[in-house]
């Protein structure tokens, strides 16, 4: 007996639908996209619930009104206007393509200039910036004395040892070629 009761209740629960369920599924119900079982449940609910039946009728009638609104047609000059606008669009596209080509070329030139300038700048920076130089090892050398550089020339030493004053020796040294040349001229005559 108990089992029978449970079964009946379960069956009733499966078939009986409350208003909330009905409203939730109403979209699919109107659009006929509900599976068979659900469709039957909805229809059963419609026969039982007056309020939902009214709601369903209102929705369907309002939709019918909207769907039956007259369709409007394009105006007679629609095609002419469209043709004109298409021509304009084509011209604009062509102009845009041309300017984009020019722009692309300009961008390429600018880019290469920037690269070149960057390269030049980098190179100059390389020259200016002191690098880590590898210098030869420092070799300690004894400083040469001041006296060594002030030592007299060998001619002066020779002149001093011969007893001649320095300026006379220098004079002779200057006059010697002239002197010999004049002797040669005299003998030739």
């Amino acid at each position, binding site marked *: 007996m108990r089992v029978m009761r449970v079964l009946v209740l379960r069956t009733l629960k499966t078939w009986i639908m409350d208003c909330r369920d009905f409203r939730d599924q109403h979209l699919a119900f*109107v659009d006929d996209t509900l599976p068979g079982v659900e469709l039957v449940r909805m229809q059963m609910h419609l026969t039982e619930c007056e309020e939902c039946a009214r709601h369903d009728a209102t929705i369907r009638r309002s939709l019918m009104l909207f769907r039956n*609104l007259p369709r409007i047609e394009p105006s007679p000059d629609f095609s002419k206007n469209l043709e004109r606008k298409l021509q304009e669009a084509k011209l604009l596209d062509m102009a845009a393509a041309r300017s984009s080509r020019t722009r692309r070329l300009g961008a390429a030139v600018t880019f290469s200039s920037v690269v070149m300038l960057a390269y030049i700048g980098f190179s100059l920076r390389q020259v200016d910036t002191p690098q880590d130089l590898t210098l030869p090892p420092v070799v300690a050398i004894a400083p040469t004395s001041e006296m060594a550089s002030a030592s007299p020339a060998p001619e002066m030493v020779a002149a001093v040892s011969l007893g001649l004053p320095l300026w006379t020796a220098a004079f002779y040294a200057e006059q010697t070629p002239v002197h010999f040349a004049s002797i040669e001229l005299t003998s030739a005559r």
Partner: protein
Amino acid sequence: MATIARKQTVAVQPQGANVREQLRAMDDSGVVTAFLSGEERAFSELVDRYQTRLLNFIYRTIGDREKAEDLVQEVFIRVYRHLHRFDRSKKFSTWAYTIASNLAKNELRNRSRNPLVLFQAVQKNWQEDDRPLQFEDSSSRPDDMYRKRHLRELVEESVAKLPEHHRHVFVLRELEGKSYEEIAEITDCNLGTVKSRLNRARNSFAEIVAPYMD
């Protein structure tokens, strides 16, 4: 190689007077392929197929007929310019609607920033010229005609009252018959969001219209 390419182009580019008929028999993907192969007339075919649908979609979204025409033209200009970038594994219609949807959204955003534009648009929307006559049945009595016209205006007003993102989804589903998945793709939302927005939009719309329906 060049010869093969030329032969393929010729195959896609049918010669003769019935080119248009051949294009008309193709599906969207075929027409797109023909256009990308150099058949300029294929673009006219795409315009023929979508101009009215896109116009109605944008018009119902923004509520201004003149602006809607401008935006549809803008959609086709974008399609013409970017068709070579279109992923042909997807539906052309979804792509075209996505462009239209974005343009409509931008228009509404601009309007919200400029109240003057909104005012002009609303004014235009209710001009006599904008009212399609086929909605009224000439055999009806004058009071019936008046009632119908009034109802039509009321429905249009009610749609305009919906929040922008709800209206968008609502129009795509109810007017254009798009699937939830397509709407999700067009509006760049997930499926759950689309369903929830559509459900809310339907309920709000019904609530606004209900008092006038009886």
